[in-house]
Structure formats: C-alpha cells, structure tokens
C-alpha cells in the first residue's frame, strides 16, 4: 500500500502530512461558466493552498457544485483559466484530484469489486490490489460488507464506499459535494471521521455543504458563493463570527437569499 494511504488507514500516524507537490497552488483566474445563455459563474477568481479544510457554502444555485465540477475538470470554463501549480490543468494533474458526489454512484458489483475497479483505473499494479482493498475496507469499516453487492448497501455505507474509493486514488485534493446531505447523524459522523482522517494525512479537503454545524465542525476556511460569484473567502472563525459580506450575513442569519 502507498504510504499516503497507510497514513489514512492508521489514525495514529495520520498526523504526518504528505508533502505538497505539483498541483499547488490551485488557482481560478476569472473563471466563468455559462449554459443556455445564462452565466452560472461570473469571473470567479480564487486560490487554494494545501493543508487547510475549505468549506464552500452558499444558497442553492450559487454555483457550489459547479465550482467542484470545474476544478475536477468535468466541465470546462467558458471563460478564464484554472491552473494547477502555475500550469493549465491537464489530465495528468487532475489525476491528483478526487471527487465524491452527493448521491453516491456505485458500480453494479460487490463492495470489494468496486474498490478493485478503482485501483485498476488508477493504475495500481495487480499484485498490490488485494492488500490495498483490505486497507481501504478497513478504513471505511466495510470489511463485513466486502462481498455484498454495493447497490444494496444503505446510503451511509454507499457514501463510505464512495469516499474510500476516492481515497484509493491517493489524491492531493479531495472534493466533496454535500456528501452527507441525505444521511442520518450516525452515518454523517462516520463520513466526517473519514474526512478528518484524510485531512490529517495531508489531503486537501474542499467540501460543499448546506449544514452550518458541519461547516463549523470541519472548516478551517470558508468560501461563500452567491449568484455565481465569490462573496467571501475567509477563515472559518471570521466567517461565522463576523462575515464581511451582506449576503453571508443574511445566509448565516437564516434569511432567504433571493
């Protein structure tokens, strides 16, 4: 097993962060995305550094999920550029980025076979896969479910599988799009624990959430999006105690942002 993943799989060793490599800083330069003649993000510029947990917040339609998809390369900006380590993002660099979706997508295979497939796609040599699968199953506390069809698992179990499958890529950046949106508190706690382990092992976390409590538990810094624009980028402490934008203040007070 790769050292990075070993750190994630063994909590005691999780504090040793991995060395930052070529994708940092991750920068968006005036990034816009339009569809159907409507601008969904408007000249978005930001800079992400490793070592912090970034939470993305904002009302529905603010462009949070879109931001993750742009960073992951699932959609291409209609304006501006995204650079990784100062260079335009390419496929090789993007292999250091993993994405977990709000609704877990699992293959029509067993839990272990889902992980085996991911390891094959990530180019892990065949001889190493069994060992890596065992470690990933342990990480996600999925050992007892290894042989079960992934699609019969509960939502929380499927999301744990999605998360450890993403970690199988040994990413430097883990993008999470509301991974606990439809989960109960117990399942949410398990996902948050996994996120915490990954972060402690040096994986940069960018998490979209609507859950203020979760944001306060996990965030080192907050990106607040409103109407496709970056309304605020500040430390979690500053954001929750003294938001600088009127939109963020209204959002935190529970007022409707139209």
């Amino acid at each position, binding site marked *: 097993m790769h050292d990075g993943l070993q750190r994630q799989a063994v909590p005691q060793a999780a504090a040793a962060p991995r060395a930052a490599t070529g994708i940092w800083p991750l920068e968006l330069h005036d990034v816009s995305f339009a569809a159907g003649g409507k601008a969904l993000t408007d000249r978005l510029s930001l800079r992400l550094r490793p070592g912090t947990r970034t939470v993305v917040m904002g009302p529905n339609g603010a462009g949070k999920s879109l931001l993750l998809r742009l960073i992951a390369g*699932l959609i291409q900006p209609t304006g501006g550029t995204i650079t990784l380590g100062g260079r335009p993002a390419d*496929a090789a660099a993007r292999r250091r980025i993993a994405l977990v979706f709000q609704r877990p*997508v699992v*293959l029509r295979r067993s839990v272990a076979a889902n992980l085996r497939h*991911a390891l*094959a*796609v990530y180019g892990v040599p065949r001889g190493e896969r069994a060992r890596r699968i065992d470690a990933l199953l342990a990480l996600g506390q999925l050992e007892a479910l290894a042989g079960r*069809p992934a699609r019969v698992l509960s939502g929380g179990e499927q999301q744990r599988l999605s998360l450890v499958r993403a970690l199988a890529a040994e990413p430097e950046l883990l993008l999470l799009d509301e991974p606990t949106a439809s989960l109960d508190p117990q399942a949410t706690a398990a996902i948050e624990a996994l996120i915490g382990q990954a972060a402690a092992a040096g994986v940069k976390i960018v998490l979209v959430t609507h859950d203020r409590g979760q944001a306060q538990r996990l965030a080192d810094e907050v990106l607040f999006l409103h109407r496709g624009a970056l309304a605020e980028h500040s430390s979690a402490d500053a954001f929750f105690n003294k938001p600088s934008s009127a939109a963020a203040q209204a959002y935190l007070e529970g007022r409707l942002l139209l």
Partner: protein
Amino acid sequence: MQDFGAAFGQAFALILSGDADLLEIIGLSLRVTFSAVALACLVGLPLGAALAVGRFPGRMAAVTVVNALMGLPPVVVGLGVYLMLSSAGPLGVLQLLYTPSAMIIAQAILVAPIITALTRQVVEDLHGEYDELLRAMGARRLATIATLLWDARYSLMTTALAGLGRALGEVGAIIIVGGNINHVTRVMTTTIALETSKGNLSLALGLGIILVGLALLVNGLVMGLRSSAARLAYA
C-alpha cells in the same frame, strides 16, 4: 384436422425415438446459431458500446444506419454472402459456400446489427449514470467501455437473446449459402421448409416443436439468470 393430429403424434414419437438424423440436424442448428451469435457479439458488443460512449462527427448517422440494419432482409444477406463466397466472388478462394461456415457468416451478419443497436441503447443508459464518476476517476475510453459492458452484462444477455431468436428461426439466408445439403448443411429451419414442401408434416412438426422448445429453454435460462442478478442488484 385428423392429419394434423396424426402429424403431432408422429412428431412426438420421432422426438422420443432419438432419431440419428434428427439429432444431427439439431446439433448443426445449434452449432451454427450459437457460433453466429458469438461472432456477432464479438463485433456488436464493443461496437455498440463505442457508439454509446463515443462523440464523433457522424455518430447519429452511424446509429441510424445500425438501427436500420436491424431489419436487413435475410434473403438479401444470403445473396450478398453468396456473391462474396461464390467461386467468382472475392472470397471464393476460401471455398466456404455450402458449408456451415458460410451459414455462420450469413447469420452473424444478420444478427450483428441487432446486437450492436441494442447494446448501444443499454450502454448509453448506463453511461448516463456512470459518466461523471468514470470521468472524475480519469478512466480512459477503453476502460470506460469495458466497465460499462461488464456492468451491463445481465441486460446484454437479453440483447444476445434477441440475436439468438433471430438466428435460431432464420431460413432465408442460410438456405441460399448453405444449400440445405443432407448431412452437411441441413438445419432445423431449412428441413422444416423442405419437409413441409414434400408433405412430410411429422418431421417438420417435430423439428418445429423442438425449435420452439429450445427457444423457450434458452429464454427461460437467461431470464432466470437475469432475475437472480436483479435481486442481487447486479442488473
């Protein structure tokens, strides 16, 4: 009606007797049909998946052509294969005309568009579900196709079944390229046609009953397998 009833009786007696000629005809039918479907799957499954996943100029035209080819008239295919394999044709040197191989080729040509078109539909539906995941994982095109084909395997069994149905009941093409030669290229459908024209209804009916029985058996097996897979959420 009396003749019809007697023919049924004789047909069952023939089936139960285990007649050597009958078994030979059934054996050749199954060999030709399953070989043709396997050949068509070898071409049609990856081609259908590539059409489902690929984005290239002319894709819609290609899909339309493949869909249209599902209705290929068997006699036209038979004629085309005959012209290719006849001694004056470009593949005449292979001397395959009036052999089971020629029948397999003709049936494979008939079945391949069915497999391709249905595979495209099945894989395209699954691709809609897996697309973002596989792209986020950085899966290459070939890995994506392999993943989709494997995960759609139980649905694709139904696709193969549709091809099998077409091949098993086919007569027009194989009678042209096979010639219905006794002990060489005589299969169930061509024998049914021949024996009916000769008025030998018992053999024709016996073969018809076996043909329908085989189709039911294969369908039952595949559907049973698919139901089990669906229960386990693999389909």
